[in-house]
């Protein structure tokens, strides 16, 4: 296998990997939505605690989002700063 073919295969596989990694954004969206839904329920039950609930919800969503951000960073590094191509081109 010559070097060009290997590089082509590696690049296309990396692009597919980036796409697959971003599937975690789906789970993120679903569960951040669930968080907001529960927060709205709680505000409906206790409108006087709205500020506190909103703040807690935002922090919880930010922590939940970490996985999505990690997958985003992994996808970016697969696309723009692929470490594997370095093994091919010595």
């Amino acid at each position, binding site marked *: 296998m010559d070097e060009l073919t290997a590089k082509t295969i590696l690049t296309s596989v990396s692009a597919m990997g980036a796409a697959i990694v971003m599937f975690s954004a789906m789970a993120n969206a679903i569960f951040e939505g669930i968080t907001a839904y529960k927060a709205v329920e709680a505000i409906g039950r206790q409108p006087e605690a709205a500020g506190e609930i909103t*703040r807690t919800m*935002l*922090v919880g969503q*930010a*922590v939940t*989002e*970490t996985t*999505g*951000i*990690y997958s*985003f*960073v992994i996808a*970016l590094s697969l*696309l*723009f*700063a692929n470490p594997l191509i370095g093994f091919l081109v010595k």
Partner: protein
Amino acid sequence: MDGGFGARLIDVAGFQISETILVTWIVMAVLIALAIAARIVLRKFEAVPRGAQNVIETIVELITNLTTSTMGEENKGHAPFVGTMLIFIAVLNITGLFGFRPPTADVNTTLGFGIVTLIMMYGSSIMRNGFMGYVKGFLEPIPILLPVNIIGDLATPISLGFRLFGNVLGGVIIGSLLYGALGAASNAIGISIPIFQAVIPVFAHVYFDLFSGCLQSFIFVMLTMIFITNAM
């Protein structure tokens, strides 16, 4: 988009510096000038505020209330640090509105902020519990968890930094893709001026620069306060 979405290098007086550093220093200069202006206004301090003193007092009170409600009354002394981080990160994030690349879209800036938080965590812990208490904190609840505690501490600045970085960089990438698509669309209908780029990206800017930027800076300082309180 040649060379990906990284920060450009700019020639300033014969030096190659990255756009991140240039924009950060501009923002720092503006904020320091504002702080000095506020100091001059507050020289004739009045018991009943009016004019600019009203605005300054509102901002200070907001930050103090946020700090006391999150960290407790006894940690009120952290309010200046929290306020500085909040205002600095918020202004850095909304530089995208002025046509710059936000410095927080560079992983060096955000990891720097994360390390500042880590130092604050350790400093507060040492000031509260003494050095031996700080070392003992690694052996809790049982000494065999020492490696887990060390890894957990090292993960804190990384998760903080990458959260801010990923959110802002996502906005930057979607913005530049949108600008590219609108330019191509105006070329496709035969106008050489990219006329579609005029009004349509406003919504993206409002969401990604204003809303998301302020929200991310708020979340960053909230998590910072929670981590510092937990470390003490």
